């Protein structure tokens, strides 16, 4: 080995060490301690010594509340894709045209995404107050009857309401990404299509959409992971209620951990959440995103 090669390696080591140290302290170590915690019965103080094997996993997976939480996560994942993808695409395509007030419209669509999630949650919570909230006021004003227990207080309505708020919050990200993707489509392609006699609609579907593929796949990935880990908005709006109608895996583990001091169960739930996210991310990376990296080579 040459002297230069050795030096280069040392240099790489030196530059990588801080990043690795941060990764170790803030990612690997917490994951490892969550895994360790999940095998013990532990109340949050004193020595961790009551080893219970897989008992915590058994309790988590056998708990109806946790199963419902997983179902709610899946509903949010699927609904996000089904609703936000077409809506985001449509808005992005509209805003990509040269229309009046385009800048203003783009800003309006994007503002909710920039707003802090907790602040947005508190505002929506007040808007959705039964009887005294603005939403109920508008519904009554047009002559309809708002739900007796409010949108967030009725178990059947809480999850759909939560989803509407989440869509309002995250549509901006989809639109922004799709707009950026559309901007990457060269004008010549549109011109060529037009010369061949394609209308606006045809150009969008046949030219823009296929070229948006990589962007859409990236957004799908972000959306899925975000939906699986959804916590802030649920916690502020409903805390997982009413009657556990809006629990997610994240609210379940916080509830078990910091509220009930069942740190072992919270640890097991967090490991399950981690595994689900990890497997999905990995599969997505291997099966779907890979196409994008391969074609670029």
């Amino acid at each position: 080995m040459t002297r230069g090669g050795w030096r280069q390696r040392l240099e790489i080591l030196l530059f990588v060490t801080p990043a690795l140290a941060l990764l170790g302290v803030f990612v690997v170590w917490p994951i490892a301690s969550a895994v360790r915690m999940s095998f013990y019965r532990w109340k949050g103080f004193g020595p961790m010594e009551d080893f219970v094997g897989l008992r915590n996993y058994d309790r988590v997976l056998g708990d109806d509340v946790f199963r419902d939480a997983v179902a709610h996560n899946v509903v949010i994942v699927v609904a996000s894709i089904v609703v936000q993808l077409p809506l985001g695409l449509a808005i992005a395509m509209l805003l990509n045209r040269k229309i009046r007030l385009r800048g203003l419209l783009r800003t309006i669509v994007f503002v909710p995404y920039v707003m802090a999630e907790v602040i947005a949650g508190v505002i929506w919570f007040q808007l959705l107050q039964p009887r005294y909230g603005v939403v109920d006021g508008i519904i009554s004003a047009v002559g309809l009857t708002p739900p007796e227990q409010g949108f967030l207080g009725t178990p059947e309505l809480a999850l759909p309401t939560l989803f509407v708020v989440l869509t309002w919050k995250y549509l901006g990200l989809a639109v922004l990404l799709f707009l950026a993707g559309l901007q990457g489509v060269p004008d010549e392609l549109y011109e060529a299509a037009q010369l061949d006699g394609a209308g606006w609609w045809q150009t969008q579907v046949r030219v823009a959409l296929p070229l948006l593929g990589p962007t859409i796949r990236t957004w799908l990935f972000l959306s899925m992971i975000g939906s699986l880990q959804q916590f802030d908005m649920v916690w502020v709006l409903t805390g997982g209620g009413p009657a556990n109608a809006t629990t997610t895996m994240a609210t379940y583990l916080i509830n078990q951990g910091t509220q009930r001091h069942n740190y072992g169960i919270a640890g097991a739930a967090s490991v399950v959440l981690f595994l689900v996210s990890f497997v999905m991310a990995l599969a997505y990376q291997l099966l779907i995103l890979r196409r994008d990296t391969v074609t670029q080579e």
Partner: protein
Amino acid sequence: MRSKTRRAALAVLSAGTLLLAAACGGDDSSEADESTITWWHNSNNEPGKGYYEQVAKDFEADHPGVDVQVSAMAHEDMVDKLAAAFQSGDLPDVYMERGGGELADHVEAGLVRDLSDDAADEVEKIGGSVAGWQVDDKTYALPFSLGVVGFWYNKEQFEQAGITELPITMDDLYDVIDKLKAADLTPLSVGAGDKWPAAHYWYAAALRSCPEEVLTDAVGSLDFSDDCFERAGDVVEELIETEPFNAGFLSTPAQEGATSASGLLATGKVAMEMQGHWEPGVMQGLTDDGKGLGDKTGWFPFPEVDGGEGDPAAQLGGGDAWAVPEGSPDVAVDLVRYLLSDEVQTGFAENDMGLPTNPAATGAVSDPALAQLLEVRDAAPFVQLYFDTAFGESVGGAMNDEIALMFAGKASPDDVVSATQQAADEEK
């Protein structure tokens, strides 16, 4: 170029070392210095904050060489910090315990100092109120404030609805609810979104339904097989069926903001709310003029239930107590004893900071509502600690969740008992 790289590498390495040092540090204060003691409390508003600063100064004056470091925190901050302190084992020398199962767990882990002998005089003076902070007949913390739960109501709205007598039985309460509804008023608010305010109904019903021995036994044995627990659920279910609560009560928070359960009572949107002794203070914080319901505030205890085996004068309640961790210096115990002295408790009462436990301070409570509560509390044969506190977070949390489900019509009285029993069995 080379020297630059090396210097950068050095900086990076030392930063890494610092980080590691920071991660490993933090436990160097466990060897407490005899002359410096730390005290955490949650009276972070005036007059309480200033009063406790003065108390610490007076104590330092009486104990030359002792330095008391006082930390006044918002309640939620203190709870979070204490949880972290328990994990690290680095506790303040004087801190607050809520009693019950949580304290029993701390005692079992060997973290709390036994005060039975060191503060025997104070334990005797406080009397029966200390029960919630005893484990196996030993006292681990001294309660300095103990309140009871009952119905806070708006006197003006009661008058408006033509209610002249306060309810003694559940049937009387249903009459009150009917009259309020007839007058187009919302009878009750409940912060079922936070669960525990809903659970208090079940606790109070259980207190009226079950004899004292059954409740005391249940706290120790975690056995809920007595059918009085199910009857308690029946009482609550019957009340829920009269639909007395504010719209959206399932998602209503207990005391945050004007649309919370306490906010609705404070702003005259509902006529009653069942809440703890802190309600007048909470309502003051939720109104613009800082007065809450003011002179319109009234209070009555949870009514008697049909066929109940519990003492109708017994009350549901809870409070805060000063505790000292195992291994803290003796002077910390002296501070706790001083905090329970006639002098400090009288000042505590004069500042309306809570309901003092030292009988010498009883006369000093100036707020009429609090004075009334104090009378009820002292007339009670016993004060049952809130069940979620008594049973500990794990069992208590499961119980509260199931009771909240009952309020949503998704659980039966039987479900509440079996969910509680199931969580309790996991603890054994």
